[in-house]
C-alpha cells in the first residue's frame, strides 16, 4: 500500500498576521513556517501505520504545492518520517488551483490512501481534500478522526452528530482528517533529521490551471470593545445599551 500525505506550508500558528501592499498581501517578513498542524497529524498517523509491518505499507510520500521556500517544511516532513516528497513548483493561488495540481500528480502516480488535513491554518479553506477526490473521481471521507488497516482494508472513523461512523471505503480513498487522527504530532528525531537531506525531493512542473479567485484585500477583525459593567439594579441602562448600542433588542 502506498500513502500520500498532502501538506501545506503555513505560518506558525502564533504568528501575528500583518498585511502589506494596501492590505492585499500577507506580510511574510520574519514569519516562521511550519507544516499545517492537521497535515502533520495525518503524517504522524501514516508513519504509525507504516511502523506496523502487518499493514504492509511500502511508502509514504508527502506532496505540497509551493515555491522553493517551502522546502524546509517539506524536509521537516521527511525528517519526521516520510520516505520521499514531491513539490509542485508553483505558488498556491487558491484551493482549486492546489487541488488540480495535486490531482494531476496522483493521476500519473497512483496512491492507495491519500490524507489531507481538514483545513489549513492559513486560509482555513477546508476545500482542497474534497476537490482532489472530485478531480480524481475517487471516494473521500471527511472529518476522519481514526484510521487503521485491517486485512488490507482501510478503516476510517468519522465524527458525526452524536457519535461516529465507521467506513471501509474502496481504494484508492482520500481521507480528510481532523484532530484525533493522531495523539500528538511526531517529533523529528536526530536520525530522521540527518536522513532528511538524503531522501528524494522531486520537483514537478505545474500544469496550467485557471485561477478562479482573486484576493481583493485582507481585513483584521475589529478589536473587541472593552466589557461594560453595569450595576445590578440599573436595568434601565442595560436595556438602553442592548437596544441602542448593541442593537439586539
Amino acid at each position, binding site marked *: 500500500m502506498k500513502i500520500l500525505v498532502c501538506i501545506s506550508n503555513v505560518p506558525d500558528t502564533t504568528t501575528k498576521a500583518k498585511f502589506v501592499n494596501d492590505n492585499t498581501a500577507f506580510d511574510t517578513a520574519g514569519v516562521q513556517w511550519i507544516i499545517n498542524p492537521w497535515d502533520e497529524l495525518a503524517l504522524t498517523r501514516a508513519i504509525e501505520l507504516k511502523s506496523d509491518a502487518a499493514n504492509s505499507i511500502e511508502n509514504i510520500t508527502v506532496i505540497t504545492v509551493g515555491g522553493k521556500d517551502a522546502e524546509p517544511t517539506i524536509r521537516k516532513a521527511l525528517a519526521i518520517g516520510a520516505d520521499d516528497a514531491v513539490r509542485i513548483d508553483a505558488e498556491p493561488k487558491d484551493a482549486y488551483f492546489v487541488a488540480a495540481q495535486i490531482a494531476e500528480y496522483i493521476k500519473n502516480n497512483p496512491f492507495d490512501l491519500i490524507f489531507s488535513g481538514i483545513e489549513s491554518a492559513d486560509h482555513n479553506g477546508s476545500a482542497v481534500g474534497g476537490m482532489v477526490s472530485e478531480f480524481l473521481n475517487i471516494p473521500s471521507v471527511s472529518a476522519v478522526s481514526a484510521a487503521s488497516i485491517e486485512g488490507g482494508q482501510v478503516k476510517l472513523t468519522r465524527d458525526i452528530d452524536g457519535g461516529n461512523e465507521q467506513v471501509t471505503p474502496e481504494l484508492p480513498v482520500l481521507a480528510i482528517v481532523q484532530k484525533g487522527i493522531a495523539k500528538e504530532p511526531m*517529533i523529528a*528525531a536526530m536520525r530522521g*533529521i540527518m536522513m532528511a537531506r538524503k531522501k528524494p525531493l522531486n520537483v514537478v512542473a505545474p500544469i496550467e490551471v485557471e485561477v478562479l479567485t482573486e484576493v481583493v484585500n485582507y481585513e483584521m477583525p475589529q478589536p473587541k470593545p472593552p466589557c461594560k459593567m453595569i450595576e445590578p439594579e440599573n436595568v434601565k441602562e442595560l436595556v438602553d445599551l442592548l437596544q441602542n448600542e448593541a442593537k439586539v433588542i
Partner: protein
Amino acid sequence: MEENLTIKGGEFLIKQTEANEIFIPEEFDEEQQMIAQTCDDFLETEVFPNLERIDAQEEGIMEGLVKKAGELGLLGISFPEEYEGFGQSFVTSMLASERMGAANSFAVAYSAHTGIGSCPIAYYGDHEQKQKYLSKLATGELTGAYCLTEPGSGSDANSGKTKAVLSEDGKHYILNGQKMWITNGGFADVQTVFAKIDNDRVYSAFIVESQWDGITYNPEEKKMGIKGSSTRQIFYNDVKVPVENLLGKRGEGFRIALNILHMGRIKLGGNVLGGAKRAIDQSVNYSNERKQFGQLISNFGSIKHKLAQQAIKTFTSESAVYRVSRNIDEAYEIYKNMEGCDVGRATMDAFGQFGSEAAIMKVFASEALDYVVDEEVQIMGGMGFSAEMPADRNYRDSRINRIFEGTNEINRILVTDTIIKRGQKNHVALFERAKEVIAELDNLKDDYQSQGYFEDKRHYVENFKKVALMLMEVAVNKFGRKLVHEQEVLNSISDILMNVYVAESTMLRVQKLEAVKPAEMYNLYKDMLDVYVFEAASIIYKHALDAIHSIEDETMTKKLMNAVKVYTKVDGVNTKDARRRIADKLIEENKYVF
C-alpha cells in the same frame, strides 16, 4: 598548529576581529534549526507539562525523560557516529543545550548527562570503553554522572581523598572514598570517579558502574532550587574497579577533570540562554496582561527598562557564546589533522585553547540569567513571589549556575590568570602589546573625532582593551607571582575583560546583521549595542579605578587614572529611548524576538 587558528585563546585582547570572522546564531542552517525545533517540541510535550512532578522527584520521571531524549537522538549530537552519536559540530550541540536550558531541573539532568557525564569517556576513553559505555550513553540506554567534588574538596578540586589501590592480582583497583553534590547521582548507571592511586599527588579517573558492590548513596539532597535534579552523596567502600576501566593514563585525572570543566563552562553559557529567553517570554506575557492604574504595566517606563535590560543581557551573552563556540569548532578541525591527535585529544585541546573565554561566558551568562529571573519576579510583583507562577522556580533554579562548573569566584580568577599565563608562555603576544599601551600613556591623545557608527564602536572597544592591558602589565610588575593572591585585583581585571569580550562580540554580530535584518529590526540591534557599550564603559571605569588604587603603584597611579578617563570615554546615548524601543518590540510581539 596553534598559529593556524583564526584567533587563539585570549588573543581577542590584542587582535582586531572582523565581523565576517565570527559565527552568529542567525547563521544556523536548516538542519540545525530543525534540531532546535526538536528540542522545543520535546520540552513542550514531555517536560513543561511535568515541571511540578519533576520537582517533586516522582519516582523514575527524570530518568525516563533523559531516556526519551535519548530515543530522539538528543544525547549524542556531537559524539562520533561510530559510537551511536551524530558527529555534529560543537556549535550544534550548544544550540541543543541552549534550547534544553529552558527546562529548569531537566536542563541540569540533560547537561550533566551529555556533558560531564558522557564527555570524559567520549574524549578520554579507549575504543573498548567507548564501545561499552559511550554508545549506550549516546542513546540513553545508560545514564551518566561525574564524581569529582568531595566534602572537603570543592573549588580546590585536586585535594580530594578518594583512593584507589591496585589489587594483589593486578586485575582491579580498589576504590575507597566519598563524593558529593553528584548530579544525576540517584539514577546514573555510569560514573566517572576521580581518585588518587596509592600516594599520587594528582587524580586518576575511573569508569565506575553504579550497581557494583560497595557503592552506597545518601538520600537526595534538599536544595534551594533545581529540586527535580537528583543530587546525591556517594560512598565507595572497597569497590572493585577492573583495571581496564582506568580512564586515560594514571595521573591524568586532574587534567581530564579540568578540561571537562572548560567544556562544561562554555556549555553552561549556552544553557542559561534558554532559561533566560523563556523567562523573558513569561515576563513580557505577564506585563502585557497585568493592569494597574487603568493600563497595562507594559506601558510603564520602569517595566520597559527591565524588559529591555533582560533582552540586552541575553542578546549580548548569546553573541559571545556562539562566537567562541565556533572558534572551538575551528580549533578542533585544525587539531584533529595533527599527527597523533585523536578526536578526543583534539576536542579537549580545542576547549583548553579557549579556557579563558569559557570562564568569561560562564560568569557573564550565569549572572545575566540571575538578572533576568530576578527582574521576572519583580515584574510580576506579588504574583512573582507566589509559587503559582513560574518566576518562583526560575529564580531558585538560576542560582546554582553561579556555583557549579566552578564557582564564579574561581572562574573570575581564571579569566585573568589564564590570559596572563598565555601571555607569559608566549602563546599570545600579550605583554608586548601591553608595553606598547603603557608607552603610549606618556603621549596620551584625547582628540578622537567620530568616524562612523561601527568605527566609533570599534574605537571604544579597542580603548577598553587598552585599559585591561595596562592593568595587567602594572599588576604583574607589582605583584609578580604573588598576583594570584590579589584576588580582588584579578576580579576587577576579569570584569573588564568580560565586558571587552562581550562588547566586541556584540559589535561584530550587529555589524553582520546589517545584511540580514530589515531596517526596523536592525535599528533595535543597534540600540542594544548602544546601551550595552555605554554601560560597559562605566563598568570598566569603575573596576579600573578599583584596580588602580588597589595596586598602588605610585609611579603609575596618576598616569593610569588619566588613561582610564580617556579610554572609557564614549558618546552619550539616550538609553531611556533606546530601551523603550527595544521593550516596545518585545511587548508588540509578546515574546523574546532577538
